């Protein structure tokens, strides 16, 4: 049982449900408290300990069914069918097994049967299930990838569980029976039974392998779906993907916020600051009206975002803005500018309530700039240099997002140099692959010397990596 629960936990993990070690242990403890006869209770007990996200529940239920039910039922069915088949041939399974058991008892001691043979002769299906699972694990069935491998892994599993050996044992047993004087008719029935048993075990092993393949496919599809989204280039997104991506970004941002706040918590509530308290309350005759605690403060950075919103990079801008919008509290102040050629400030748009509306508006130039023109980075940076350079100080991180495709205009890289001189650091995110930087009308190479961090940023994975780097 323990092993099986562990295998199930691993299956959950492989399918993208995060289960920590502690939660796995909780699951065991939970099972200790309950009677496990009730499948529903069993399922809910494992779930409450290991699956904590509403979104994962459907996947959990599916996996539970796939893993826990089913195979035993498959076994049961197969053996019921065997019993039916034998009955049709005039063989009474129960009776013949009972007879066999009695005769075996007489030769007690001399008989040394394998686990498998014993399970088959006593029709102990749970034991048989265990043996198959164990053998399948040793055969590496968990690695199965496609239909063509079903035969291969089934054979390996059968080998691992010693099916041939068991078959031999059963044949020998029949011979012993004959030697002990069992009648011909009965011997024939017995032979029929043994043959059927072997056939049924082979078939159920195959069923097991097929189920394993199903589970793997489930994992595969799930993983694929997630990876698709984080790896998918922002350049080609459907409406639907944009909507889903928005959720993923929200979740990533939340994760970062949680990390930030927990870290902040660690700087616990400080001790009483006696000196400050006395000084603060001097005017009230030193009566501690207002109490001051010692606290450690960590300065939050200021953030200035310069965001290219030309249509070629609109999606990248969209998700970067969403990220930053969600993380506003990580900064003392965020100022946000958008540009194509002209530069406009959209900070106030961000103070509006609705995040998606705010972002769409910013991408649209926020009513302050014309977005339907040809990109001119140099012009935009110069505008910034002229009007806003003064707002940059040593606590400011300047984040620029754009492909640096400048339409052969003047790059005015010295503007960035001056910005870098005044800022804490300058980060540039470019959605193009580095191999394209500096070629054609790309002037990325001109700006790079004045940036502290330059990253390729074309999908969610890259984006979240950069955000981690800047904030954490």
């Amino acid at each position, binding site marked *: 049982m323990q092993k099986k629960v562990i295998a199930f936990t691993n299956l959950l993990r492989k399918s993208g449900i*995060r289960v*920590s070690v*502690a*939660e796995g242990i*909780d699951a065991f*403890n*939970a099972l200790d*408290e*309950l*009677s496990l006869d*009730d499948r*529903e*209770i069993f399922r*809910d*007990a494992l*779930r*409450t*300990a290991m*699956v*904590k*996200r*509403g979104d994962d*529940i459907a996947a959990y239920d599916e996996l539970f069914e796939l893993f826990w039910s089913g195979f035993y039922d498959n076994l049961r069915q197969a053996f019921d069918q065997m019993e039916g088949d034998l009955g049709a041939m005039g063989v009474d399974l129960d009776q013949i097994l009972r007879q066999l058991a009695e005769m075996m008892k007489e030769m007690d001691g001399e008989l040394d049967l394998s686990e498998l043979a014993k399970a088959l002769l006593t029709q102990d299906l749970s034991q048989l299930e265990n043996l198959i699972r164990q053998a399948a694990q040793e055969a590496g069935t968990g690695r199965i990838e496609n239909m063509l491998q079903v035969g291969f892994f089934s054979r390996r599993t059968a080998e691992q569980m010693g099916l041939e050996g068991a078959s031999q044992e059963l044949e020998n047993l029949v011979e012993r029976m004959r030697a002990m004087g069992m009648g011909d008719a009965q011997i024939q029935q017995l032979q029929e039974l043994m043959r059927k048993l072997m056939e049924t075990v082979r078939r159920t092993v195959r069923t097991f392998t097929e189920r394993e393949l199903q589970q793997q496919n489930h994992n595969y599809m799930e993983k694929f779906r997630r990876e698709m989204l984080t790896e998918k280039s922002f350049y080609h997104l459907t409406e639907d993907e944009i909507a889903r991506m928005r959720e993923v970004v929200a*979740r990533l941002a*939340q*994760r970062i*916020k*949680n990390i*930030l*706040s*927990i870290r*902040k*918590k660690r700087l616990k*509530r*400080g*001790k*009483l600051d*006696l*000196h400050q308290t*006395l000084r603060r309350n001097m005017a009230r005759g*030193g*009566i*501690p*009206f207002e*109490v001051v605690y010692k606290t450690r403060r960590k300065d939050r950075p200021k953030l200035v975002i310069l965001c290219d919103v030309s249509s070629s990079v609109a999606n990248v801008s969209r998700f970067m803005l969403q990220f930053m919008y969600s993380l506003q509290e990580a900064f003392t102040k965020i100022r946000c500018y958008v540009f194509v050629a002209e530069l406009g400030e959209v900070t106030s748009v961000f103070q509006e309530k609705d995040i998606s509306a705010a972002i769409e508006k910013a991408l649209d130039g926020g009513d302050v700039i014309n977005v339907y023109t040809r990109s001119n980075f140099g012009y935009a940076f110069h505008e910034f240099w002229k009007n806003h350079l003064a707002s940059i100080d040593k606590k400011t991180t300047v984040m620029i997002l754009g492909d640096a495709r400048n339409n052969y205009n003047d790059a005015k890289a010295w503007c960035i140099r001056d910005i870098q001189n005044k800022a804490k650091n300058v980060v540039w995110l470019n959605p193009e692959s580095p191999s394209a930087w500096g070629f054609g009308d790309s002037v990325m190479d001109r700006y790079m010397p004045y940036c502290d961090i330059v990253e390729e940023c074309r999908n969610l994975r890259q984006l979240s990596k950069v955000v981690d780097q800047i904030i954490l």
Partner: protein
Amino acid sequence: MRVNEREEAMFKSVQDVIEQLGDQGYICDKKIATVVFLAQQLGKPVLVEGPAGVGKTELAKVVAKALGRNMIRLQCYEGLDEAKALYEWEYSKQLLYTQILKDKVAETLAGTQTLAEAADRVGAQDSVFFSSRFIVPRPLMQAITSEKPTLLLVDEVDKSDPEFEAFLLEVLSDFQVTIPEIGTIVAKSMPLVFLTSNDAREMSDALKRRCLHLWIDYPSEELEVRILDRKVPNIDKRLAEEVVGLMNRIRALDLKKTPSISETLDWARALLALNAEELEDQIVSDTLNVILKYEGDVEKAQNELAKLIKKRTAEVAAEKPQGAPAAEASAVKKGILH
């Protein structure tokens, strides 16, 4: 596990949970009961999530009642901080004491030369003014210091700020608080903890890891009929089924606010008050505002109703092709769900 030191009410099994909560008027399935039972046995907090009005808060209340525990409730909101949740210094009382003890203070300060020296003297007496005497315990502190085992309900934890969540996490992990001026206070008896969340924001993984998780969804039709039966006495079984059936259709619509169990209850009561015996379309139409709060939602539900009636009418017409107009009228009258 630190429960059961004294004679204490305990649930004996999952079935026992179902029965005892049922006695308190809370109808639940095995799913809920299993988690409640495990929370008791393992002494772990439960994070209850789900849409509004499905009985998250109520669950904590009835568990407290069933176990005869005192329920301490911490209602979360944006801006809730440690001081409001854990303890505060009672400044006015401190002030009062300082005034009353003025002479004593002067005595203490007698002979000091400099301000710094005086301050040191006062500092040495810190502990007098920062002792438990001057602490106002808030819910978390109450739960920790209670002599008898309690049930702590942290309601709508998703409304609190992430900072607060992090703080909560600390309290939940060891059930002790450290007050810098006084020391560490450890819980005398383990409270049973329920946290509820409406999913306004996702709770952190760290918090989730520490809790058992319970997802309460809208109830199955069968369960909801039983809840109605229990909470609205006098309701006719058939009417209850109709109400629940229609409610589930309405829930399937894309609404701004999906009606919940409390709305089902309100609706059933309203219908009883109007002496309705079955859901005729006029009555439904008239009472939709009991279950739907937004104009747009009411409209959507009206449309859905109209569709249902039309379908029903067509069916009746198909049954009796010759008397179409009469059939139409009777179909509409006959209540839309049969």
